[in-house]
């Protein structure tokens, strides 16, 4: 009765070997999409089954796992995947970027620079950057094989002719190691520069599409652009209402139904560390704090992301029942903000 129902990290060893072979191939050919036999996972596709399979394949008993969703450790997706690995692998988990050996992420790259000891695993919905330009998969494979990437620039051209600038703000196409054009998963283009010459191994898993691709450590990753319209990682500035950071990626949080809003770091760990280091910085913000949001530089519209796609989420406390370990930040999560931080940022408008 009490016998463990699952193999370590859920997947059986043969499956893990199969995934590892795909990962090795992906590392050998940076940016190339390697097909793999994606498995059914006990969660819906679209919840990060690709990333979960990659993580399960590389996870060892001594690893320390961090899972983030939109930069945040306490959102539904992150919490359930973390619980999944606690249950099936019993590994240590953390919310601290510095302490983690494997970081599984949806839609963000942590603000803290990663190290050679770490692996970043991305959950990818649509791995094919040319998909919306050329619907035929046979044709896009051919285009990758022959390095015919003129079409990618057609998309950027179209952006400029319609909006006066390259308006692609997430899933911004990159060229890896001077060869393959790659979709960096729906991360904001703010994070693109972090992929370049990154010390950590970056792995991308797309479960539904059955593709794995990778960026090995210290690989050149260039965002595509035009000579007269160069790539710009950000197009507006703002200040985090909690830690006063001006250089991090901000989420717009709806605080009430009367138009109140505030901008906070999307990377919760980054924000908490900054607040712990300089506790005098943040103003205490109350729920529904329209006063606080009035003092923010609203003109910039945060980072330009709309807030229309998700209603205000009921406040959720970072779960104190989570068996957090190895995270020095645990103390700070019970600090000033625990009462109001919504469970999810208002989401990438670009959920595809």
């Amino acid at each position: 009765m009490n016998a463990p129902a699952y193999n370590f990290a859920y997947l059986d060893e043969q499956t893990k070997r199969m995934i590892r072979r795909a990962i090795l191939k992906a590392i050998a050919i940076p940016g190339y999409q390697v097909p793999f036999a994606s498995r059914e996972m006990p969660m819906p596709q679209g919840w990060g089954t690709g990333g979960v399979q990659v993580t399960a394949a590389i996870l060892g008993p001594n690893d320390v796992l961090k899972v983030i969703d939109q930069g945040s450790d306490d959102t539904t997706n992150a919490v359930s995947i973390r619980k999944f690995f606690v249950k099936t692998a019993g590994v240590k988990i953390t919310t601290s970027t510095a302490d983690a050996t494997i970081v599984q992420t949806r839609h963000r790259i942590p603000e803290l620079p990663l190290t050679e000891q770490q692996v970043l695993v991305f959950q990818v919905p649509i791995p094919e950057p040319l998909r919306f330009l050329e619907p035929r998969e046979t044709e896009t494979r051919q285009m990758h094989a022959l390095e015919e990437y003129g079409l990618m620039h057609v998309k950027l051209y179209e952006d400029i002719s319609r909006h006066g600038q390259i308006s692609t703000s997430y899933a911004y196409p990159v060229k890896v190691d001077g060869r393959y054009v790659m979709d960096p998963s729906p991360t904001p283009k703010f994070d693109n520069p972090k992929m370049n010459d990154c010390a950590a191994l970056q792995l991308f898993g797309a479960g539904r599409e059955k593709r794995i691709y990778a960026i090995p450590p210290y690989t050149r990753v260039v965002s595509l652009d035009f000579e007269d319209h160069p790539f710009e990682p950000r197009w507006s500035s703002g200040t985090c209402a909690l830690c006063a950071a001006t250089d991090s990626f901000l989420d717009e949080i709806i605080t009430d139904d009367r138009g109140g809003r505030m901008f906070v770091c999307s990377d919760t760990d980054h924000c908490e560390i900054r607040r712990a280091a300089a506790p005098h910085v943040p103003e205490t913000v109350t729920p529904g704090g329209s006063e606080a949001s009035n003092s923010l530089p609203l003109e910039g519209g945060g980072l330009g992301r709309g807030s229309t796609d998700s209603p205000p989420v009921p406040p959720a406390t970072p779960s104190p029942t989570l068996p957090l370990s190895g995270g020095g930040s645990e103390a700070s999560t019970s600090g000033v903000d625990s009462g109001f931080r919504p469970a999810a940022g208002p989401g990438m408008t670009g959920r595809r």
Partner: protein
Amino acid sequence: MSNLENDRPLLQAEGLSKWYGRQLGCRDVSFDLYPGEVMAVVGESGSGKTTLLQLLSAQLVPSAGRVCYRLRDGAVHDLATLGQAQRRFLFRTDWGYVHQDPALGLRMAVSAGANVGERLMAVGWRHYGRIRSAAEEWLDRVEIARGRVDDPPSTYSGGMRQRLQIARNLVTNPRLVFMDEPTGGLDVSVQARLLDLISGLVAELGLAAVVVTHDLAVARLLSHRVMVMKDGEVIESGLTDQVLDDPREPYTQLLVSSILPA
């Protein structure tokens, strides 16, 4: 281009045949096409015209025979021995292919400017302003108002789409253009304007072209030479005026006499 180079054929077909299983596509077609020369392939539906065009443009693999093309560096290559990458490169630089249905040759969802600029971007242009002005210049040349450069072709009329398709093909200064019924599906007055435009561009740019058509008027207006096809075989060929004014074969006589008097 020196005169010496113009004396050598650009495209050579030798004994081209295509069988679709037991069904004949075309049989034993041979001809030379010289730079600046326009050849029309006429015949009724099912006579193998489009099969021939696809064989010539390396979209189909011939069952027998071969197609040789003289590249810009002067070397003559059998298309079958070129790698796929080279063939595709040819297709988007040195060749053009004008489809009967513009929706096949255009990207209907992106703007006209991007449609024209796609080939330029494919050969490495990375300056938005220059791509756009090249696109506008070409819209001028095919008589589309510059103000329409940001509109997608789905908002264009049939004649404009066909002209946009021509601009998209000619922007890289190809030497050889394949046209499959370029005026099909257009009304008569639009056809006349389009033919006028095509013949002007062909003369101005010194293009070689293979034009497939069932319309003898198109052949007469555009082409220097005519090949008449029936049941997959070439039954008559020669100078356009000669073939159309003094047809030898009974079938050609039938075709010519079936034109309604104007």
